């Protein structure tokens, strides 16, 4: 077993760890004192401290969920819940410490891209260290900051929406995040403003035994639109690490939010994320969600279709390598009439990897003329690979059109032979097939992410051929 674990980690390209430059961290484990100390350190208003403590209470009362992936390896007492890497927020790149810059260099984020993009909010440990907002965004009244700044500088707006989509008592891990959250992004797009450049954030865990509990809140006001992108890659550590984020989206009347994620956690990370959106009248919410790496991922981006004519789009891709379990899926809750949802899931299992699709479609009694389409396809690369589908449907209105298709397939010998007969090596042929399988997902990604994902998949294929 130990040998196998070593095998798994050795080819993890981003498995490096820079010198820990942390300047403040709470004691290991979880207690009201730890929570209070986080809040105090951030100089938060009283209501937030109360919110956190109440959430901690919920967390302690909730049992561990047992309906999904195996979480028995999690030890909540062996985790730092808050680490603050630098004293002050850096607004200029020059102010960012060199060791942190090196980390970004090794992640391969090109300098040109940093300047080109609207704002790069790079989360290093629990705190945002670098943050820039392009001037034209500011002129349009778009707010884009880390969540702590959002709370400090726009408290009224922040408080109006914070925790309204995912209340602290929603589930155990949402409660945990609510108690110890730190960092993440806060975005507000005013009425009618269309943000044409994607807002991006890079996240990174970089401290042994440190959980990352970022909190993202995005509000798109009436008739506005925004595309938010987060990409993650984590360094490799020997002991288990926990990532438990909460992402709340609110799309007001006629607004559109697209939220793109590519996560590539190192294979010791428990990635337990709650993502949920509210789509009001004629609003559109799109989750584009790619999950690679991690030990266990449980993530089901959801959309509550609250207003007539609202539309939800969820496109997810998961890759489970040796020893990994990707338990992912999606939820669409149709509350209002004439709402539509389209869910597409693609997953690949390699070696002893396991993927699960877990979906929930709910249509409430008043939601007539609802259209739902669910399609999930799984590809198995090896004999021992595994994939399961758990589709749940609660339909309380007869006036609904639902399409559900699911397939599980294996990489065929004939496909490999066809490609190799053109001179392509077996390994490259497998990578082509795998990339092709993810193509419907990849083509939704901005170019640089598409390239990176294809590269990561190709790396994951190395050694796939005996």
């Amino acid at each position, binding site marked *: 077993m130990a040998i196998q674990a070593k095998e798994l980690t050795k080819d993890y390209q981003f498995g490096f760890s820079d010198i820990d430059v942390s300047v403040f961290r709470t004691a290991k484990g979880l207690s009201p004192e730890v929570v209070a100390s986080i809040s105090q350190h951030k100089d938060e208003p009283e209501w937030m401290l109360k919110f956190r403590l109440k959430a901690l209470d919920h967390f302690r009362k909730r049992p561990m969920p047992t309906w999904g992936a195996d979480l028995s390896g999690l030890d909540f007492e062996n985790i730092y819940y808050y680490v603050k890497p630098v004293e002050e927020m850096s607004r200029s790149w020059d102010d960012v410490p060199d060791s942190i810059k090196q980390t970004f260099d090794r992640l391969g984020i090109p300098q040109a891209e940093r300047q080109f993009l609207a704002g790069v909010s790079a989360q290093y440990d629990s705190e945002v260290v670098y943050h820039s907002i392009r001037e034209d965004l500011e002129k349009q009244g778009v707010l884009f900051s880390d969540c702590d700044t959002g709370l400090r500088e726009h408290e009224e707006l922040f408080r109006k929406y914070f925790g309204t989509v995912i209340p602290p008592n929603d589930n155990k891990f949402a409660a945990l995040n609510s108690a110890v959250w730190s960092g993440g992004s806060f975005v507000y797009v005013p009425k009618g403003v269309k943000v044409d450049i994607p807002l991006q954030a890079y996240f990174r865990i970089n401290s042994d035994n440190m959980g990352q509990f970022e909190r993202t809140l995005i509000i798109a006001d009436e008739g506005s639109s925004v595309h938010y992108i987060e990409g993650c890659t984590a360094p490799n550590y020997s002991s288990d690490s926990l990532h438990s984020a909460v992402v709340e989206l609110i799309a007001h009347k006629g607004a559109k939010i697209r939220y793109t994620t590519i996560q590539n956690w190192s294979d010791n990370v428990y990635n337990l994320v709650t993502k949920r959106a509210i789509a009001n009248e004629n609003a559109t919410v799109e989750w584009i969600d790619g999950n690679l790496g991690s030990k266990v991922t449980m993530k089901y981006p959801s959309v509550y279709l609250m207003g007539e004519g609202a539309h939800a789009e969820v496109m997810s891709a998961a890759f489970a390598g040796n020893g990994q379990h990707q338990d992912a899926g999606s939820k669409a809750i149709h509350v209002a009439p004439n709402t539509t949802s389209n869910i597409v899931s693609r997953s690949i299992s390699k070696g002893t990897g396991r993927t699960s699709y877990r979906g929930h479609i709910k249509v409430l009694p008043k939601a007539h003329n609802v259209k739902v389409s669910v399609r999930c396809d799984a590809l198995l690369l090896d004999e021992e690979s595994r994939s399961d589908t758990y589709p749940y449907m609660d339909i309380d209105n007869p006036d609904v059109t639902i399409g559900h298709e699911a397939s599980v397939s294996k990489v065929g010998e004939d496909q490999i032979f066809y490609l*190799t007969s053109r001179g*392509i090596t077996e390994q490259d042929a497998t990578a082509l097939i795998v990339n092709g*399988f993810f193509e419907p997902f990849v083509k939704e990604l901005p170019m640089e992410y598409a390239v990176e994902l294809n590269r990561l998949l190709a790396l994951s294929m190395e050694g796939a051929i005996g």
Partner: protein
Amino acid sequence: MSQEVLSISGLRATVEGKEILKGVDLQVAQGEIHALMGPNGSGKSTLAYTLMGHPKYVVTGGSVTFGGEDLLPLTADARARLGLFLCFQYPTAIPGVSTVNFLRAALRAQGKEMPAREFLNRLSTEMKELKIDESFRSRYINDGFSGGEKKRMEILQLAMLRPKLAILDETDSGLDVDALRTVADGVMRLCGPDMGVLVITHYPRILEHLHPDRVHVLHDGRVVTSGGADLARQIEREGYEPILGTAVAATA
């Protein structure tokens, strides 16, 4: 000495434990067009797959050289890189992999990569010749193609990859008269001193377009007779029976 590109001698092969090829002898000289005919079940397609190196086809005896090199120890991709090409009877769909990406990957693998502009120009030209719509560039390879479209796509790959020897495995099957002409014209345009063809068929019709230098008849896993183009005409007139009758009698 000989300018043979392909030399098969005493080739035996099994599929799932059953012997299909029972000692095939066949020589194809550089730049020649050879036809391999024979009734259903004679082993024609097995020979094609065996030559290309499909893992299901197990060689149990004999030898094959290609361009002077021993072909049999090589994997399919290595055989392709030596310049062997198989036009599939039933090409496989690869969803998500576009024609353009697939062709670029194949050219790169064979060390025949060219600048993007040149590649696209050539692709455009070849597609026009084969009457393939431009939209097929971004279509996923063979995914949802009709039988005729798949065959044209095979010839397009042939045209882009320019192998030393192309094996056409029943490329004519399922084609209407016009499609057959397009495909055959495509092959004729490509073959010459640098590219030979081994066309496998049981209908002589395609041979009217391809004008083979030699015609071989395969029966029960062996080449039982060889001749010129008139052998194909005789088969068209009289069927296989008279030929096989004498051949089988001769070997019995």
